[in-house]
């Protein structure tokens, strides 16, 4: 099918589509690598402290005993599930943050930002970079890529506790995490086209709809489906596992399964033998995607007990993350500054090499005596 080939040429298909197993294993390996790095970072800090302690103990001899707890020994890192919860928190935060500007940032753009964040955290861990550092940058990047222009100063004004440099600092990092692919194919526009076609088919009597107000029913189903796409689709992994056209059909199925089935059946009949081979597989795929969408429960939808439970869990993870956050990447602004400075002036090792060379030269000169040699008087005597 021509449309399928068009989609296959997109970066969303080429870079950002995974089977559920591949997705899980990717997250697992990311988590393991990040855990190692966090431990290594804490280890370095401990070593530095030891050296400091040793120097101090030289001054006040006898007093310096190994004091305080060892930070590297018992760093408890996040599990993959906990990491995912943190990323979810970041996604919901993006939705909230998008509301504060006037006019609020459109939901499609927030969805783009959320997908940026989700893609970024496939190969990066919240332990290395906390989502709160990344999400404003992701949102601002999404406004740029989707042509919804807003000046950075205005954007930053509306978000309390954020400065321009905080948004700017992680931009390259984020771009690299996104493998420099900024194209996110959303199912929202597809839903619009699909609903249009459903109504057209209905008008031409090619699709039979029951009920007293068939058009109203389609409208309602479309609204519910759109709601699914705005929230459930963003908070689950459907973008990685399914194509946009499958996602909007699944959302429609989750909203009004009879309508979706009737439409699919008529569509497949209309397509004829070309579509016969993929009919069964397509229905299965859409069904599983629809299940995924309808199984998602946002915090607001949950009952009180569950909400309490969720909040408690979130707090626990937050505390844990606070303890195992990579200390070397805490201040992204400083890290960026240092790196750019290094790029400009050469890395630390370069500097060391230069200073060592100078020292050697100086020593050599001192050994050989004065630059102009010994005084004439002395040589005569």
């Amino acid at each position, binding site marked *: *099918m*021509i*449309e*399928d*080939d*068009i*989609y*296959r*040429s997109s970066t969303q*298909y*080429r*870079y950002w*589509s*995974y*089977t*559920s197993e*591949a*997705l899980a*294993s*990717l997250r697992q*390996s*990311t988590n393991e*690598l990040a855990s190692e790095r966090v431990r290594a970072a804490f280890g370095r800090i401990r070593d530095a402290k030891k050296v400091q302690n040793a120097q101090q103990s030289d001054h006040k001899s006898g007093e310096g005993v190994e004091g305080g707890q060892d930070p590297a020994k018992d760093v408890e890192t996040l599990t993959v599930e906990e990491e995912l919860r943190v990323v979810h928190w970041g996604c919901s935060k993006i939705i909230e943050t998008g509301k504060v500007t006037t006019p609020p940032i459109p939901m499609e753009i927030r969805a783009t930002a959320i997908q940026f964040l989700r893609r970024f955290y496939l*190969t*990066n861990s919240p332990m290395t970079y906390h989502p709160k550092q990344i999400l404003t940058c992701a949102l601002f990047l999404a406004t740029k890529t989707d042509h919804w222009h807003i000046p950075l100063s205005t954007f930053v004004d509306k978000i309390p506790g954020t400065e321009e440099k905080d948004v700017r600092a992680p931009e*390259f*990092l984020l771009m*690299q*995490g996104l493998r420099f692919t900024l194209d996110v*194919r959303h*199912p929202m*526009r*597809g*839903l*619009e*086209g*699909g*609903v*249009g*076609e459903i*109504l*057209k088919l209905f*008008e031409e009597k090619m699709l039979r709809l029951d009920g007293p107000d068939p058009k109203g029913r389609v*409208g309602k189903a479309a609204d519910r489906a759109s709601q699914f796409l705005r929230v459930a689709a963003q908070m689950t992994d459907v973008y990685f*596992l399914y*194509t*946009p*056209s*499958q996602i*909007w059909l699944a959302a429609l199925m989750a909203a009004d399964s009879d309508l979706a089935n009737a439409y699919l059946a008529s569509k497949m009949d209309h*397509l004829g033998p*070309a*579509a016969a081979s*993929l009919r069964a*597989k*397509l229905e299965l*795929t859409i069904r599983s995607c629809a299940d995924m969408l309808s199984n998602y429960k946002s915090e607001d939808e949950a009952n009180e007990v569950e909400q309490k439970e969720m909040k408690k869990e979130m707090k626990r993870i937050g505390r844990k993350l606070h303890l195992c956050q990579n200390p070397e990447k805490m201040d992204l602004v400083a*890290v*960026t500054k*240092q790196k750019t400075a290094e790029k400009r002036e050469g890395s630390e090792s370069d500097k060391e090499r230069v200073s060592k060379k100078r020292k050697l030269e100086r020593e050599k000169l001192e050994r050989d005596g004065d630059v102009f040699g010994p005084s004439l008087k002395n040589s005569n005597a």
Partner: protein
Amino acid sequence: MVMSGMQNGHIASEADDICPVCKNSTYLQKNLRFKINTKCYHRICEGCVDRITSTQKKCPIAGCTFAARGVIPRRGEYRVQTFEDLAIEREVDIRKRVMAILNRREEEFYSKRAWDDFLEQREELIMNLVLKTDVKKTEATLSKYKEANADSIKANAALERNAAAQFESRQTLQKEQANLRRQAAQQTYEDDRFHTLTAGSRDVKAGAMEVIHDDGPVSDPSGLVKGLRKLRPPSPEKVYDPFMGMATTRDYYGLQADYPSMRLTKAKNDTRTRAGGFDFQAYYDESLLRAFAGLGCFIDKEKTGQGPPATRELATVVAAESLPGRINDEVF
């Protein structure tokens, strides 16, 4: 062997030229004109030509080998001399005749070597005829070749004529152009257009043949000339495709003229939108393309290689790019 016609009368312009038959001389008759026989190259005056072709029916020069063989000269066989030296006159005639038969063009040959070989071969045949060595054999070869390659000889001759005609017409065009430029120096626009028109026609070879490169060298039907290419008439130029082969049709849907209630109802009836040239069709098409692009891509199958993507190149690209476990290294 020395030609009989060359012993006497090879200086046409000299004042005391004498006709060997009637002994008239230009000294007495200022307007006496001579003609030569294209077979034996004997030179006699115009009056004698008239007389001989109507009565005697053979070359009147004593010792002429053609006359001895009983060859009857016709009026058409006498013509005015071009070159002072009759030997050159004869060689040029032979050259003309042979070249009209062996009229292959360079682009017909498979390699430069083959073309050079052909030229050498042709020169050899010409010199055989000029120097009268192996005349019979050479003539036989030529006539055999002529019979076997009648079509190609005709085509090449036509091409040559065409090229000559084109050259001529171009020449006249250029002259006209120059005239025009001189006459109307102010009408620069007109002139430019004319110039480009004539310049454009320069590149088109008159009915040139297209070369098929794949086959190896072949020889002509008579087997005389070797190392030829196979040629065929040029195929018609392809129509320009701005989409470079990209499909513009759709499989999953057919675009309708209008769709109900796609949040555009208001805009559709708004003259301001319409006046601005907003293309609703394009909007519908984009929406429907988004709705169906990738409907038949099953990631769980295609990414594990069970149902590979449609094209092979894409399959390799996808396989190379989507390797999981590629972790970003230290970015900063």
